[in-house]
């Protein structure tokens, strides 16, 4: 039983090392990189659970993934909402564009590209 965990951990860390090494970085697919990280974290988590721990630490480790997901979820929500609220509205740009369009239209009519009624 105890022999499985180090093997899984070794495989995961090998994949991660390959994923992170500069020479392989560009040729490795994104999905492989993502899965390597997930696999490594998972293997470490399993390894942690298999070692002898106090009840409290063990419970904390069991809850850790849920907590991490919740934290990431909150971070995502706040990040996106912050982005939306700081997304600059630019009515002055629309006005500037209107002016530019008017100027362009007048000149283009002079040059015979546009007709006055367009």
């Amino acid at each position, binding site marked *: 039983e105890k022999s499985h965990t180090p093997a899984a951990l070794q495989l995961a860390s090998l994949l991660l090392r390959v994923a992170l090494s500069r020479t392989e970085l560009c040729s490795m697919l994104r999905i492989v990189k993502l899965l390597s990280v997930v696999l490594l974290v998972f293997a470490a988590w399993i390894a942690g659970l298999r070692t002898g721990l106090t009840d409290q630490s063990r419970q904390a480790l069991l809850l850790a993934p849920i907590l991490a997901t919740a934290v990431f979820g909150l971070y995502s929500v706040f990040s*996106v909402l912050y982005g939306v609220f700081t997304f*600059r509205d630019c009515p002055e740009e629309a006005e500037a564009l209107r002016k530019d369009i008017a100027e362009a239209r007048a000149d283009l009519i002079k040059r015979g*590209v546009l007709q006055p009624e367009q």
Partner: protein
Amino acid sequence: MVATRRSAATDAEAVPEGDLLATAAVTAGTATAYGNSGGQNPSRAGQGAAGDDRSTRVRHRYSVLLPTYNEADNIALIVWLLVRSFEQCGVDFEIIVVDDGSPDGTQDVVKRLQEAYGGDRILLRPRAGKLGLGTAYVHGLQFATGDFVFIIDADLSHHPKYIPQFIRKQQETEADIVSGTRYVRGGGVFGWNFKRKLTSRGANFLAATLLQPGVSDLTGSYRLYRKGCLDALMVQCTSKGYAFQMEIVVRARNLGFSIAEVPIVFVDRVYGASKLGGAEVVMFLRGLVHLLFTT
């Protein structure tokens, strides 16, 4: 009135003196690496100190690819604004209109523009039917003689007034790609309600988290590319819709191209009706998954 003047100061405006040899060397390097960087001939670039001899300066030519479909109302306006911006910079340029057989007379307007500005400045390279944005770029690139290429939307949501900033940023950083971004300080949008902004930010956050692309605005389509880089990227990119712009940036990073950013403001004149239905969202997500598995 836009004056079509050519002053002797154009070289100085286009290329800062201190960067001349660097610019020439990089252009030469790019030409070797990618085989085709447009019509420039930097063969005399290593000759002497910057500013020695004006004929050794590398003159850059900027091609603008404008794919159009039913843009008869806007095409003359966008071309006029582009001409004005390029003349303000004093750089060499050309505008390539790739029209997909528009039934509203877009090509007629372009022909009148050619009479006004010259056939060497405004190129019309139409296609028989609506064949997609990616292939429109590939088609237009064949005819581009510049060593840099601007990609810009023809519906006036991208204002050509940012062009000098793109050019300056590229010269300062010598980046292979300069990408316009709505999301950083100085950028922004007009005509979007809360829901539209939420979708935009949410999609960008999701894609950026999964793909780690190194740019702040993944789906933006106001960009400046070295021609050789764009040629190399067009060979690889196959996505449709918003995912296409994402794919370019992700593959650019994978190929080791450097990307700089310029804040821009996006003016949505179609007022929210601009193609963001459920179908577009699904296409975006499918494109994202496709990029996860192929880049």
